């Protein structure tokens, strides 16, 4: 049993307690959401980073988490619509960006997992992803030169088990933040770091509500209802009008038909790096996404009430679309994509 000390083993080596991780609080971001039974530590995060990049976690030693989550692309899968597992099997969902997940409380596109701790072990056993089994992976780690000491430093003794793997991976993922885009610098000091005129118009469109034709109010693209706040997601599950006959989505979690077609609203930070788009990667460019919201919304019984332009369109001009696109590009954060703290430790 994983949790009982084995009496045949020599007395366990003990380690000093791990070092608490100092969270850097950035302006306009909420405080981190603490997982009280898995406080972030320097050693725990470092172990998680090693596991994230270690191909030993897959059945044939060829794949790690990073194979489908590439830091240079906000931890998405290299422009692929669907990810390919070690056996060549192809999934049905687009890989997801990884950052600012401390402020997220449900994971995967359909929200079917409630904690990162549960989430992180799933790819290892998924036959169309890394296709291994946990006892086997635990054994590989126990026999490595590296890991017993790293687990000791992170957890106080050298015991290696699936729960500790999950906690370390959770710590690493929770530590990944993206807070240094052009937009952030503008928010902190708009005089020193202004947006261009086009970006500013795009921002205004993004933040302004829809105005029906004939209204005397300025035009708005109404994105902020779901992609609002400094996180660029309000952390909800919504149906953004992709299909007249929507896929299951969040209904898989709640069993409620009113949740059909609802998916996790992704943060739009770094969105210029994460093509293709939507849970099924159906759009290959941001231009296509903007066209979807402008004129392609499909009405269905669960389409979000705030997509008020359904049927009539947002009425964006070519210039409006270019401005919106320019604004979305200000959300890319190269400090995060180049941050050595998130990079492959084996290179």
């Amino acid at each position, binding site marked *: *049993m*994983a*949790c*009982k000390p084995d009496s045949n083993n020599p007395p366990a080596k003990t380690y000093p307690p791990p070092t608490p991780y100092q969270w850097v609080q950035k*302006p*306009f*971001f*909420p*405080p981190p*959401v*603490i*997982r*009280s*039974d898995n406080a972030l530590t320097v050693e725990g995060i470092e172990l998680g980073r090693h596991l994230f990049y270690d191909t030993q976690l897959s059945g044939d030693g060829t794949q790690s988490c990073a194979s489908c989550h590439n830091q240079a692309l906000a931890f998405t899968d290299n422009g692929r619509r669907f990810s390919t597992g070690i056996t060549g099997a192809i999934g049905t969902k687009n890989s997801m960006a990884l950052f600012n997940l401390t*402020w997220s*409380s449900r994971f995967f596109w359909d929200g*079917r997992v409630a*904690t990162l701790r*549960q989430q992180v*072990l*799933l790819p290892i*056993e*998924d*036959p*169309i992803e890394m296709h291994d089994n*946990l006892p086997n992976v635990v054994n590989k780690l126990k026999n490595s030169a590296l890991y017993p000491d790293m687990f000791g430093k992170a957890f106080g003794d050298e015991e290696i*088990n*699936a*729960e500790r793997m999950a906690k370390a991976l959770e710590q690493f993922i929770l530590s990944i933040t993206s807070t240094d885009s052009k937009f952030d610098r503008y928010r902190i000091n708009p005089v020193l770091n202004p947006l261009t005129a086009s970006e500013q118009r795009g921002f205004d469109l993004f*933040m302004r*509500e829809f105005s*029906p034709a004939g209204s005397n*109010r300025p035009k708005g693209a109404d994105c*902020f209802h779901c992609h*609002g*706040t*400094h*996180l660029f*997601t*309000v*952390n*909800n599950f919504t149906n953004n009008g992709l299909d007249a006959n929507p896929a299951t989505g969040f209904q898989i979690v709640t069993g409620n038909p*009113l949740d059909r077609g609802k998916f996790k609203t992704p943060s739009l930070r770094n969105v210029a790096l994460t093509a293709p788009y939507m849970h099924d990667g159906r759009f290959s460019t941001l231009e296509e996404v903007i066209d979807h919201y402008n004129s392609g919304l499909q009405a269905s019984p669960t389409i979000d*009430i*705030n997509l*008020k332009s359904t049927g009539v369109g947002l009425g964006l001009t070519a210039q409006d679309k270019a401005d919106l696109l320019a604004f979305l590009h200000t959300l890319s954060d190269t400090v995060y994509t180049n941050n050595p703290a998130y990079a492959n430790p084996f290179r």
Partner: protein
Amino acid sequence: MKKMYALFILLLVVLSACKEKSTPAPDPDPQPVRNGVYLRMEHLFQGSPLSYGSVAWPTINNNIGVNNLTYYLSGFEFQKQDGSWEKVGAYAMFTAHEKSTDTVYLGTLPNGTYQAVRFFLGVDSVANHADPALWPNDHPLGLMRAAPMHWSWNAGYIFMKLEGRYRTANPLLDGFFSFHIGRDDLITSYQLNGLQVEGGANKQYLKMKFDVAPFFNTPHAHVLSDTSFFTHSAFGDPIANILHGNMGNLISIQP
């Protein structure tokens, strides 16, 4: 994947057999352990409990259904029998579509009998324009709870959000409505008299009801149509002004 998931649950069960698992999500509901005043709000439509998803409630010319009712109450003060006011200053967020009856802790009052309460439907202008990221994550004005109730870089918080559907002549073409009332000048003041609240070291429950029906017709009739189904309280938007005129008639004391 499903099979693997089941396997994983099994693993979790095995693991948790020897290690206590904690529940990380903080419960926003106050445990009735502290002394002080609790506000218990019941949500109704013309006196009947609100139900969600169906399009059954009659308004001026339409039947409507409610999908989302969320609002803030703030700035609570209680009046003593000598006429003076005691502040309890709590911010309360009610999400009626999640809990039709909701109890929120307001705070403590000094000894004495209190005969009236006043408060705002909305958020005072100082808090309204403060950075929402500065509140703790479990605070009703903090981004983690208020994200759907905050206009990002616009005018602050949505004071009251009412969203739903309305029936048109052709039921296949049911419309939807989305009313987001906010903005400093659209705050609504309430004063409710005839209370019997005792201050001091005890627990007091103040029972109120929030009835949605007057929002559509008392005193101003608001007819739902293709051109009147939403407002985000932009300056100059007449719909927000009309509905704001009805917002003083929603909340009352429960006998």
